[in-house]
């Protein structure tokens, strides 16, 4: 009898399995029970990505992506909590469940993907190491820095990238590295070094806002690397990775199709093509396959806009930093961002 029951249970389980695959992710379930999404913040401001404004509110590209995900899961962009974390704290905090995911200028590396037990979403941003030099030196590329001194933050991937690049290009130089970012910045500004090596977007933002006279500093043309920036999640919840990937995909598709926060309701009412209809939930399919509401993408775009709007607001033309989109544009506009196929 018990044998029969056991066989029956296994049969039932195997029959139920196809439906289980479409079922909700564990993490999403926890988020819904909690009623809040826990996102990663920064210990201070990482300008353009995760920063605190004068009213003590978080803003930035990464914060907006967190708000987008919050809307997708919980239907309200404000139902999230930003947990301030230093760079070193972010992975332990994710592993111990202090945050649900990390969206914070985090590069996809092999070590993180394997040894650290993480999994990454689609890359949503590309930025690499670059050099910024004092303008009065009259240099425009790294080769002209021969004989100069370069400052860099100790113990980072940038440190190795720069050393590697300068050796490849055979540029003779001295290197001074500092443990603290503040020490590094003040040493560069005090002219201890001719050039400052860091993540390109960070240099651009620093130059635009934190330095008294932006024209006195030049970001050199050399691209030392291109790091894919992606959201990091705990290994083992594939369904959650699907949710985050399609959140990013929906933002990109919306930009491709010209759907903005202003016209989203109109587009949903009279979709110009089947892709838009499916994306905005006018046709079923968008929600069920992820275990969410059909209208999640429409609500999300209404709350935060498409990817282009998010970029322009935080880094691009509507922000103080005025960063060109460059690589971070849609493939159809000369960038490298693309969405998977919405079928």
């Amino acid at each position, binding site marked *: 009898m018990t044998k029969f029951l056991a066989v029956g249970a296994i049969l039932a389980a195997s029959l139920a399995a196809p439906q289980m695959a479409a079922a909700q992710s564990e993490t999403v379930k926890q988020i819904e029970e909690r009623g809040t999404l826990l996102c990663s913040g920064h210990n201070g401001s990482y300008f353009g990505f995760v920063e605190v404004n004068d009213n003590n509110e978080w803003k930035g590209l990464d914060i907006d992506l967190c708000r987008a995900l919050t809307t997708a899961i919980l239907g309200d962009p404000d139902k999230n909590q930003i947990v301030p974390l230093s760079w070193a704290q972010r992975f332990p905090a994710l592993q111990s469940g202090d945050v649900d995911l990390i969206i914070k200028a985090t590069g996809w590396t092999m070590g993180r993907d394997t*040894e650290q037990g993480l999994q990454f979403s689609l890359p949503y941003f590309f930025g690499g190491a670059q050099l910024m030099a*004092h303008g009065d*030196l009259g240099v425009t590329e790294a080769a002209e*820095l*021969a*004989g*100069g*001194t370069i400052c860099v933050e*100790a*113990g*980072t991937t940038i*440190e*190795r990238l720069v*050393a*590697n690049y300068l*050796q490849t290009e055979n540029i003779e130089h*001295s*290197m*001074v*590295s*500092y*443990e603290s970012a503040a*020490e590094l910045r*003040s*040493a560069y500004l*005090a*002219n*201890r070094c*001719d050039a400052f090596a860091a993540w390109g977007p960070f240099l651009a933002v620093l130059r635009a806002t934190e330095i008294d006279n932006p024209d006195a500093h030049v970001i050199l043309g050399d691209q030392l690397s291109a790091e894919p920036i992606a959201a990091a999640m705990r290994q083992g919840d594939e369904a959650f990775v699907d949710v985050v990937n399609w959140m990013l995909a929906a933002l990109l598709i919306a930009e491709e199709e010209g759907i903005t926060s202003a016209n989203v309701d109109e587009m949903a009412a009279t979709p110009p093509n089947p892709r838009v209809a499916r994306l905005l939930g006018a046709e079923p399919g968008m929600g069920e396959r992820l275990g969410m509401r059909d209208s999640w993408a429409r609500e999300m775009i209404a709350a935060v806009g498409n990817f282009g709007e998010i970029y322009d607001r935080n880094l691009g033309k509507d922000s103080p930093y005025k960063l060109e989109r460059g690589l971070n544009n849609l493939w159809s506009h000369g960038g490298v961002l693309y969405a998977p196929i919405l079928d």
Partner: protein
Amino acid sequence: MTAAEQLRARARYRRLGIQAVLVIVTALAVWGAVTNAQYNLTRLNMTSGFAFLDRGTGWNYSFSLVERSINDPYSYTLFIGLLNTLFVGFICIITTTIFGFLIGTLRDARHPALNFAASVYVQIFRNIPLILQAIFLYAILIHLGGPRQAVSFGDVAFLSGRGVMLPGLNVTPTVAVAILLASLGLGIGLILARTTLWRGLAIWFGGSVAMALFAALVLRPEGEGILSIPVLQGLRFSGGISVPIELFALITSITLYGSAYVAEIVRGGLAQVPRGLVEAGQALGLSRVSIWSRIKVPMALRSIIPPLGNQWIFMMKATTIGIAIGFSDLFYITVNAISQSGQTLELILLLMLTFLAINYSIAIFTNWLNARLKLKEH
């Protein structure tokens, strides 16, 4: 067996028992810590061991006495860190001892203005944390401006926010290190040969200078002078000796701080010299300099050496603040190697053993010096 013998035997067993328990508890604690670390490393899938020492580092750092490249293995890079720490440590020990004696003597002097100045110095530099002094000094120095704005001293020496440029002998850094080592060897030889202090110093100084000049004459590049003078070329100075500003700031701040402590040790030692001895010197009509060098200092040294040895050990440990101002001492190199390789436990262990070995050597030297200077009649 008498009752007394029985009691004595029992006391001995008790002592042995307590010792045995202590040994077992210590062994268990060490074993527990090691297995616990091993278990956790395996659980977290982290690799342990010293294989990483043979891997190339791929990163650069600010200062090295010998040739280096980013392809060097971790072991060689750590060795350079050790050289840098020893280099800064020994320079600081020497400068601190000289300045400390000078200021300590002034503290003991009867001239009120000198005495007051020395007291102010000691109170200021002894009571501000070393790391704060180092960062403050470094911040001032780097704001001096780039090489093109350098302060010139007669067009042969320059000071800028990048470093101090001095005219030097026209030899490669490796030869310079060899000369320094030879000079150190000569000094040790003279101490072992028990030459008198002033004579020994004269021979050491003369010998070192002669060696350096000879090396420069023989080993200088074809067709160039003995002296190499710094000249501004493009983004930096070339020629001469270039002392990076980090090294300069580190040595200066450790010297200023350490001298204040040594001065107090010296003052204490001088104050312990019995008045009668000084008065005896005065009665013999000895000059004040003679009384200082032949009576006070030799007598005071006996109480100065043991605390001075502690101070020397402290100087060596103080080099670790180099990390705060970007100087690549052993601690800096180790911390960077930890970030880049992830081998935390192994690197910390190496760092601790190295410092233990350096400082234990200094302690042995101090004990030897103390034993040698002890009054034999006592």
